């Protein structure tokens, strides 16, 4: 048995993903976002999180997946990693589970269209339930954002 880690589970399409609970500040419903001009398309804008202005990105767009209309179950997960506070739009977020760190295996090259470098690993949590753990540091890599900006502008 390895260490138990608490993970927030959310969905993009049919796949289930997880981020460590201590990196998540709060989960919010979809609310008004103010567009920021000349940013990459997956950046949806900024929101008011109790007086703090927080940038919000669409995780589907970030991974190059097809973006869908936001629904009632769509959520914004506010994460706080390396002093960056960012909101991530996901299809739904509805569970917190314990994952045995021994059950996490290295990610394959590509899972559900997402490159391995964005992933921390894959955890088997049930009979045929796979949970893909994100590597938030890479997902929120600013260097990549700057490159993207340069491509766009």
């Amino acid at each position, binding site marked *: 048995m390895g260490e138990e880690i608490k993970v927030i589970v959310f969905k993009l399409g049919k796949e289930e993903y997880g981020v460590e609970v201590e990196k998540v500040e709060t989960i919010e419903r979809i609310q008004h976002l103010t567009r920021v001009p000349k940013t990459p398309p997956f950046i949806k804008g900024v929101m008011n999180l109790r*007086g*703090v*202005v927080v940038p919000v990105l669409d995780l589907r767009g970030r991974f190059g997946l097809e973006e869908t209309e936001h629904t009632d179950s769509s959520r914004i997960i506010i994460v706080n990693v390396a002093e960056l506070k*960012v909101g991530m739009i996901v299809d739904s977020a509805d569970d917190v589970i314990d994952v045995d760190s021994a059950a996490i295996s290295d990610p394959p090259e590509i899972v559900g269209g997402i490159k391995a470098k964005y992933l921390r690993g894959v955890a088997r949590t049930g009979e045929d339930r796979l949970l893909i753990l994100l590597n938030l540091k890479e997902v*929120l890599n600013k260097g990549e954002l700057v490159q993207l900006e340069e491509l766009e502008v």
Partner: protein
Amino acid sequence: MEMNQYLSMFIDESTEHLQAINEKLLELEQSPENLDIVHVIFRSAHTLKGMAATMGFEDLASLTHQMENVLDPMRGGKQSVDSFIFDALFKSTDALEAMLSDIVAGGTGKADVTAIVAVLKSIVAGEYKEASASAAASSASPAETADDAVALDQYQFSVLEQSLDSAFNVYFIRTELTDECVLKAARAYMVFRELEDNGEIIKAFPSVEEIEQDKFDRAFSLYYVSKLPQESLVHLIEDISEIRSATVTPLDHDSLRLMMQTAGALAESAAAVEAPARPAGNRSGAPAEAKAAPAAAAGHAVASRTIRVDLDRLDHLMNLFSELLIDRVRLEQLASEIRRSDLTETVEHMSRVSSDLQSIVLNLRMVPIDTVFSRFPRMIRDVAKTLGKKLDLVITGADTELDRTVVDEIGDPLVHLLRNSADHGIESIEDRKRAGKDETGTIQLRAYHSGNHVIIEVSDDGAGINRAKTLAAAIKKGVVTEAEAERMPDEEVYRLLFASGFSTADKISDLSGRGVGLDVVKTKIESLSGQILVSSQEGVGTTFSINLPLTLSIIGAMLVAVGPEKYAIPLNSIVETAAVDAAKIRRLHGNDHLDYRGSVIPVIDLAQVLEVPGYQTPEAGERNLVIIRKREKLAALVVSDFIGQQEIVLKNLGKYLSKAFAVSGATILGDGQVALIINPNALIK
């Protein structure tokens, strides 16, 4: 009474510096070899000297100056420290503390420091071993100055003198309430308010605090400066009910001086004899008697007027308030849906209260930089006198608001820079004449917002920085080699001025030239995460430009709509708004231009630059324009609608989007939505 603002600031800062000196002296006693500690003490003493001189507390300044003289050789390791020097320094610090507490108690901070100054001087001269006997009796006695607290202090006196000089009327007003009056404090307050609307109260007897606490008899007196004539003042006061009489006595220079004397004389006797207040008599006698009565209590603490609050708490308050605001908007919506009159009323009341609260919360941290700036004209005047130069200080942008933290910290660096400009920048009168310049040197002090920065500039029209002299000094100190010096670009040469212990001044003056100063300035600015730049042109002048980030600040902004989106444009870069027919905008070389008051300025379509999705400015019809300015350059921004002016709180976009295009930050609108703030500087090429 405006001067209290600076006084309390001075007291706060001086207390801190004195405490630092005390602590560091103790530390130094433990490890006398540590030169770093000497540096810290020296800087504190230096700053203290500057501040005291600025506030006109000469004895404080002269004592700290002597301390500096003692510390200076120690700083270079040239003088070892022994217990005698420590004793002298500690005694000086005690004396400084005594003077400061006198100031806190409302006194003038005057004290006899000759004995201790003599000791300090003998240390500098190296003959202190013999002089040690006289050191015993050297600490200052604030007791003898306590009496002054009754009368006008030197500062208030000079304020009154200056008011007379600038064609204001100075009055001594004695007001008596009727015997039936129950709420004495409230009536007195009404009088104060009426008067403060029309002029300025310099001093009140009994003190304002005592009046507020009802600690006075039927009468009170005050010194008052106003443009109003005597009769209208009498009417003004007697119009308030329950006032038995108001005696308004105009004062001129002579009667003012006479009063200063009699007041001083009476104050002494007042300690022994309790003088009962008599009804107002002749011109000079009455005020003096009125002063005698509250003699015992007049030394009320000035320092109690402010409290210091941890800024983190204010931040927390601010965030909590933003949450409240969102709920308020939500409640307003719900109330308008439910349509129950008592609910609507309650919500409306809550809205009013919360908008009052909003302005308080928002303004808590913000202070106009004026609180720092306005003590400079006096300082420059004194400096000019000391140096025998003619100086003119031009201040612009004193209403620029800055975070309290920044305002608190920016005072010392600015004092250094201004003194530096006056001392080194501006040439002597003869040199200026020879160079064909106006005899009077001009120092400009400017503050303005630029994007999400505040820029404070100190510029003089003096001789500029002498490259050769600077480099020669740098080579002598071993900061650069001769070979390096030759290749150095000007900017880097100027940067040498900020190196520690660097000074090109030929002689050490009371003002500057010790080589503390610019390096302290730089360290301070950098600790505020700002930058300092120098630009200079020989013979023309030097500009020090301090660039401070505006992490949290409130600015006036114009809210505009661009299609479905809302943006805020800082008011200080807006020249005006206009509505112009689309046909008047002409296309030249693929860019739109507009004839604007005799010049051709570019027209920028915000919908287009900001790539507003699904919206285009219609081809024909009227265009709403916001004319913006970046220094001399103008441009017109096309918006679809003006929403209105508003005070907004600047917020940054978060680190993830730190470099957004043409946007300097964001603000949260009343409805809880985020609006971006346009950075006009990025739009004007």
